[in-house]
């Protein structure tokens, strides 16, 4: 399988400005590498502040990376010409978390969807029919064509955002917490629509979420992030059946499961959950997880663990698995 996106040693540091000098950097994303293959969903999970959203935005160059390479369909995005960049802007799309701020309140649904189409100079015979078809593919219809965003519920707005990006026939879509602002009964609808569209059009997704249940449902492969680092990458099933990194184990044991019997079992295992993520301004030395890790050794405090392969497609950055 060919990768659609390859991320190599990506870094994004945000400066903290003092009165005259830069006081330091927030290391939001610190040297991460992964690739996403055609037609798959790569899930990125982690707690708030771990850098998952920054990763998604940096890949699309909505934020300029500090260092690293982003390879899209074999070409380095950082070296794109103006023309190539415009083409990349069409092929790579993003769906944001908040459906209330991502649609222009003064435009009708028709205008919202047609604006990017016009910008990219895509020829459409009958604009109205074109938009109606898109609306139908995301579960809306003709009736909604000339309405304004405030007339829609959160779930419907996310569908409009989805129709808008689909109008450009993208290949790669970053889904940044697309259902976090929605209720569970509506969330399930949107997730199913996203899956259906993927199997129909062969979209490649980067699915960013803090909800492990949702990530598992959506993703083929999952990357777990902690304080700007990827600590584990593996096939979705294996991450849940055989989590290797102590952080992944902690994260999994902490999720409340909607099943009372299983919940009691998990509660017993939860003894290892402790502490809170530290600040990414001065992250701990060595392995960033060591202050919270029940298995921390001497080496964890000093040296950063490399990402090592433990089984087929399953990688982990932890000194329990790596040889120093």
């Amino acid at each position, binding site marked *: 399988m060919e990768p659609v996106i390859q991320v190599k040693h990506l870094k994004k540091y945000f400066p903290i400005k003092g009165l005259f000098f830069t006081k330091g950097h927030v290391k939001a994303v610190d040297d991460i590498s992964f690739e996403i293959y055609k037609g798959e969903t790569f899930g990125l999970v982690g707690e708030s502040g771990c850098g998952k959203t920054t990763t998604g935005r940096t890949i699309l160059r909505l934020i300029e990376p500090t260092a690293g390479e982003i390879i899209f369909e074999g070409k380095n995005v950082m070296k794109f010409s103006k023309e190539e960049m415009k083409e990349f802007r069409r092929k790579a799309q993003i769906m944001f978390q908040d459906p209330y701020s991502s649609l222009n309140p003064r435009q009708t649904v028709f205008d919202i969807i047609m604006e990017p189409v016009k910008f990219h100079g895509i020829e459409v015979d009958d604009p109205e029919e074109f938009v109606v078809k898109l609306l139908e593919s995301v579960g809306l219809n003709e009736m909604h064509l000339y309405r304004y965003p405030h007339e829609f519920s959160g779930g419907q707005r996310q569908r409009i955002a989805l129709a808008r990006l689909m109008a450009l026939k993208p290949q790669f879509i970053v889904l940044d917490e697309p259902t976090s602002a929605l209720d569970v*009964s509506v969330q*399930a609808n949107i997730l199913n629509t996203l899956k259906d569209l993927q199997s129909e059009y062969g979209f490649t997704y980067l699915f960013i979420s803090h909800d492990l249940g949702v990530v598992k449902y959506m993703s083929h492969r999952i990357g777990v992030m902690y304080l700007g680092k990827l600590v584990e990458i593996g096939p979705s*099933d294996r991450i849940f059946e055989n989590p290797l990194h102590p952080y992944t184990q902690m994260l999994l044991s902490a999720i*409340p499961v909607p099943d009372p019997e299983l919940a009691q079992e998990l509660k017993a295992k939860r003894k290892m*959950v402790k502490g809170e993520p530290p600040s990414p301004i001065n992250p701990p030395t060595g392995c960033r997880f060591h202050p919270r890790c029940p298995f921390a050794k001497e080496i964890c405090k000093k040296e950063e663990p490399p990402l090592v392969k433990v089984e087929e497609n399953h990688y982990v950055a932890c000194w329990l698995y790596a040889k120093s």
Partner: protein
Amino acid sequence: MSEPILEVRNLTVHFYTYAGIVKAIEDVSFDVYKGETFALVGETGCGKSVTSRALTQLIESPGRIVRGSVIYHSDKGSVDLLKLNEEEIREIRGSEIAYIFQDPHSSLDPLYTVGYQIAEGMEVHGRVKSIKEGIQKAVDILRSVLIPDPESRVKNYPHELSGGMKQRVVIGTGIANSPKILIADEPTTALDVTVQAQILELIDDLRKKYNATVILITHNLGVVAETADRVAVMYAGKIAEIGSVEQIFKNPLHPYTKGLLKAVPNPMTKVERLDAIPGTVPNLITPPGGCRFHPRCPFAMEICKKKVPELKEIEDGHFVACHLY
């Protein structure tokens, strides 16, 4: 366990807005038993927070408690909390019935130390003679909510603490007067999962330690499965189903409860496809007639459009409001 501490009957709250009367909750009735964790669960706008606030008249204009009663059985006898005047309810609120709100960042005053804020609640309710004495006691309270190094933390301002630590302080202010009932309104929604697990465990430990009753308001079914003894499922301002955790999760009766359980991706099992509930939550200015769930219900019948279903006891302690039963 079977002794009720709160008996809520026909609680109805309306909000009088320019757009019309929002019927936030209508005829909500349930009992809460001594020492249990009772969960109110539902989606945005179902009225779970309004219900919890109405229990101690915490409804601000344009909202009004239209009718209903909340009988509170305390050691001193039974009272209807909705019949008390402002003075009387304030003596109970914060002292015998305490709240923990969702957002720890806005529940604390940024201009006062956390010790002062805990002490203030105790002083107002006459538990301590002065703020100074209260601050000394606050150290023990911070210790009981598992804040490390409480002697120095008591002098911290809220911005010096992390989100999880702040929520521990808020819980501290809640338990400072050793309340009989602790109402926790989405106490972990603003927090990360690893922190959430620790906060939920803390609330449960404190409930046992102080022999308190917890009313937990949440939209997260996982949290309910883990912490609650009994559950009330709310939909569009009405109670759809009440039962023990086992009854609700193993044998859900109301089509809404069934739909909700199937719509949540369980991270521990393999789910091929989620069953979504079609449609969206109705507008509460003009809610659907009859059963409010009927436009989204796969089993809707003629009667559902006309008649409001009453809560019926199907098995021991398991109530459902649905015409199917």
